[in-house]
């Protein structure tokens, strides 16, 4: 199959729940190998946008092409090519991590090596644990492992670091970079600006169901300064989080 350079083409998609217009016409494109961030306050329509792209929610109007396939027409074909981490990741009870990964592999008709995947997300020694017995960071890492079983073209991570401590969050950043270095495109939503700055090649900022800005983090900051923005304080050479990490170490606590 010819590799399409643009992995994701979103054209003016809209979604309404009753009278409420959750997504009011969103368009963007994501290039292969990119980490693309979607930022925005709660209720901005990030998750709905993702779910429409993933084929998990019907699209009222507009179109989404994933790897050259129209989501609305062939949602199952798209689902075969993508990996999806949902905001509240939950798995079947009473199955351990290896069994869950094998099951996911079978759902994609892929024979996989669960231990390889677990090693990739640094969960080898939890192979026989149940998902519910994992810490927050471990659960998110496992959740990401399940998105990789089908060697997806693009993975969608919906707020993967929300609620994690700084160590676990940084650990997850490393994982995202690792996924990118394997050639997989990543679309990620987050509330943390420094995370977006560290991880994302480009960022779309959403508000009220629309994209209000879309560019690289550096250019977005430039544009703001050009508009005459004056920082309230002189820019510190380090952040409080740097202090925290310096004092408590980078080592994972879970």
């Amino acid at each position, binding site marked *: 199959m010819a590799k399409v350079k643009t992995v994701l083409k979103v054209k003016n998609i809209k979604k309404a729940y009753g009278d409420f217009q959750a997504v009011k016409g969103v368009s963007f494109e994501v290039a292969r190998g990119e980490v693309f961030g979607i930022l925005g306050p709660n209720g901005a329509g990030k998750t709905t946008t993702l779910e429409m792209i993933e084929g*998990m929610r019907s699209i009222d109007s507009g179109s989404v092409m994933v790897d050259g396939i129209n989501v609305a027409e062939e949602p199952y074909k798209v689902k075969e090519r993508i990996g999806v981490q949902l905001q509240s990741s939950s798995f079947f009870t009473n199955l351990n991590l290896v069994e869950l990964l094998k099951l996911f592999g079978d759902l994609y008709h892929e024979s996989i090596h669960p231990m390889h995947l677990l090693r990739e997300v640094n969960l080898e020694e939890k192979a026989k644990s149940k998902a519910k017995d994992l810490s927050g960071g471990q659960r998110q890492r496992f959740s990401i492992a399940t998105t990789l079983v089908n060697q997806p073209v693009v993975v969608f991570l919906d707020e993967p670091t929300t609620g994690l401590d700084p160590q676990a969050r940084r650990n997850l950043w490393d994982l995202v970079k690792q996924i990118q270095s394997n050639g997989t495109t990543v679309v990620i939503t987050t509330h943390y600006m420094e995370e977006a700055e560290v991880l994302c090649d480009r960022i779309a900022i959403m508000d009220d169901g629309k994209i209000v800005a879309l560019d690289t983090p550096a250019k977005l900051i430039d544009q703001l300064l050009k508009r005459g923005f004056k920082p309230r304080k002189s820019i510190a050479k380090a952040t409080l989080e740097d202090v925290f990490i310096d004092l408590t170490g980078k080592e994972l606590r879970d």
Partner: protein
Amino acid sequence: MKRNLQALKSLTAASIKMYFRNVSAVFFTMVIPILLVVIFGVLNSGDGSGSIHIAVTNKSNTEVAKSFDTTLKSIKTFKVDTLSESEARDKLGKGKIDLQVIIPADFGATGAAGLQPGTVQAYYNQGKPQTGQTAGLIINQVVSQFNAKVTNAPQIYAFKSTAVKTNNLGYIDYLLPGIIALTIMQLGIFSVAFAFISFKTSGALRRLQATPLHPINFLIAQGATRVLIGMGQVIILLGIGIYGFNMHLIGSLFNMLIMAFIGTLTFLAFGFAIAGWAKDENQAAPVANLITFPMLFLSGAFFPRDAFPTYLQKITDYMPLTFLSDGLRRIANEGVGLWAVSGDILGLLIWALISGVIAIRVFKWE
């Protein structure tokens, strides 16, 4: 298609694993039915001998009295103790014996006019009139025999009983098909509804929807799991009944399994209707109980409906659990084929259709 089948197989295997690792599900759908069979089986496993406990006080030492005493002891239904009158009265008062029999001192004695008339006294517990009356009837018969012997009166009336070959069915034969039906109802309604709702509320089902597998496969896997477990339960319960408690399976195991399979489909349709409609466990529990609880008592699963008032019998004729337990019972007890229980099968299928349509109309994946 073939690929989907593979995924379905794997999903079913996972679902069976999950079922057996869920202690409370296994307890309610596997352990409880087995316990019920064992408990009722043990309680009803006696053949009736020695079931009435009597105490005899023989105050006479005549041959007739001795012979009377021996005759009583030879009756299989009686367990006979020889006690003094006061001891026996004491035991009767404490409920330790069912009947006190006193043979008077002059019983069988010969007077001037030949044999003296004598009266055998019996006392029984007012609180257990049935046992007392049964014992009284038996003793009355013995007394009549003695009368007949003594008076040498010609036997005008005779009673001849001829054994008729019956299947000699006991309570276990009645009960077991009922328990199988009950198990299938619980499997179909509770086990499916609660498993499915927990996947729905936890988000596990949502995660599955992100995979290329159509979620209907998940429902099929859940159903297939219950069918397999249900069939296994039929075999286990019948095995315990037949080898442990002398149950008689007159009909074929195959027909039992087919009937149980149809019943499983029917109750699965109920289960999916509840699971698809309910947002959470709190919504599902009352509805599931409202459906199953009345059937528990009204379907004749544990005891026959003969004692019900006629209108209630007519209503309960149409309950799905009645169809299932009656069908299973007729196959097991009468040895009939599936055609003979086609009415029950039709009844089950109509219920399956009704609840299936409701399930499709109210089903929500989230």
